[in-house]
């Protein structure tokens, strides 16, 4: 071996990097003990190795910090995203359920229909003779206990044309199994119109005779002016469970899903309801405008809007 092995730079590097065998290392170290300049050469090489490594580590540490910061900035805040997504899902779900979007709804205000109801007293198709005017109206408008709570939730009667169009695409869903032309319409149980009159009466009685007389005059005038436009209608009732799945949304919205068929002048309404009792009941139908009608089923009044198919006039 060379007396000054440190003259060989490869050997010095291998010694400092620890890539030589244990035996070789011991031999080299024995020489270092007696050669100060060799010791200095090794120390310089070792310093270079330490310095370069330290430099590399610092650089890597800085890059690592930068990478972590960048990843954190880019990281998706999943808890927030999940919360927002859940909120959106709920909103969209509610929107779809309650049809916040889509076609403009055709609305008939309850009071408009209620205003028409007094004219029932003059109906020439009334099946219960002997009862007249307000008395008959009061009886007609008594809501059935089961339907009252549902009806009270409705402050406006709203029938969406989309429901009709939706059903046009589902003719195969005809519960009767026939291929007749039919449409689905939605009926709304009218909140006791009698209540309005009772309230009005009470108010008038408190105010004295003159206003009451004026109100009665108005009522009579309205009853006379109401168009007597009775329609020949066949009314049927089917249980709710026979309702095609595509129409069950109406039940959820507290509507009375009704299948509407028309043949010539004749009209047929099949009401799907477990609460309305059509069996053996007196039923009257009144057209209150070109596209709206009321069905009086004993204690309940169901309002319909049929905007697509105008009612035939007699």
């Amino acid at each position: 071996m060379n007396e000054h092995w440190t003259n060989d730079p490869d050997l010095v590097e291998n010694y400092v990097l620890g890539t030589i065998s244990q035996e070789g290392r011991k031999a080299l170290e024995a020489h270092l003990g007696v050669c100060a300049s060799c010791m200095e050469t090794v120390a310089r090489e070792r310093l270079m190795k330490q310095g370069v490594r330290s430099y590399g580590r610092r650089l890597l540490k800085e890059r690592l910090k930068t990478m972590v910061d960048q990843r954190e900035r880019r990281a998706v805040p999943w808890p927030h995203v999940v919360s927002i997504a859940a909120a959106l899902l709920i909103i969209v779900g509610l929107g779809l359920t309650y049809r916040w979007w889509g076609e403009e709804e055709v609305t008939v205000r309850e009071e408009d229909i209620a205003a028409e109801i007094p004219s029932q007293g003059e109906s020439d198709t009334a099946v219960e003779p002997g009862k007249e005017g307000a008395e008959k109206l009061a009886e007609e408008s008594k809501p059935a206990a089961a339907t009252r709570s549902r009806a009270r939730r409705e402050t406006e009667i709203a029938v969406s044309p989309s429901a009709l169009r939706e059903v046009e695409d589902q003719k195969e869903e005809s519960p009767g199994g026939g291929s007749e032309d039919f449409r689905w319409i939605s009926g709304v149980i009218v909140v006791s119109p009698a209540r309005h009159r009772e309230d009005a009466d009470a108010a008038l009685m408190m105010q004295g005779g003159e206003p009451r007389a004026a109100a009665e005059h108005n009522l009579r005038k309205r009853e006379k002016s109401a168009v007597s436009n009775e329609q020949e209608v066949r009314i049927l009732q089917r249980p709710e469970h026979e309702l095609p799945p595509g129409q069950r949304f109406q039940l959820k919205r507290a509507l009375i899903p009704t299948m509407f068929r028309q043949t010539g002048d004749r009209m047929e309404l099949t009401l799907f309801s477990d609460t309305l009792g059509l069996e053996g009941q007196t039923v009257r139908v009144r057209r209150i405008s070109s596209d709206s009608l009321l069905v009086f089923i004993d204690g309940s009044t169901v309002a319909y809007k049929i905007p697509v198919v105008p009612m035939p006039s007699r």
Partner: protein
Amino acid sequence: MALPLSFLGKDARILDMIRRGDEQGLALLFEETRRQVVGYVLAHHGSQEDAEDMLQDALIILWERVRSGRYEYTSRLATFLLGIVKNRWLRVLAGRRREPLAPADADPPDDAEPADEAIVEEERVAVVRRAMEQMDDVCRKVLLMFYWEERSMEDIAKALGFSNAATAKSKKYQCKKALERLMRSFQESEQS
């Protein structure tokens, strides 16, 4: 044929990234183990900053071992890193116990006292770092690959586009001489 990475575990994927020199593997591992390490250091009188600093050092140790082929997978990477952090943090705590903070009214240290060897050594290392910063890019890479990553001259030649290992070795020699010159000039300027 190499298996697709999707068939390997997360540790294997990170190790593969490190072997390929992809530093994002370290960032991934940092995120994976940070909570554990911070929990440990906070529970042992340290701060969040201490914990992250310790974890970064541990990751660099892992990087060096993997890159130089001295790493052997005997436990999960998170366990390996936490082991390093624990050892180093305990040493830090032991150091703090041995060197309690001097009281505010204590005498200033005597200039005649022998300088701490570690401080002198650190100053020398700092000079090399400064010199490295002044080196050209190729020399910096050659020296880093040789001394830090302990790559063979063949590897360095391939990575840096030298025609062969002998050319790379020649370049390394030139770079070392340039570094020594810079070191000397820094030392001389400090002494003057």
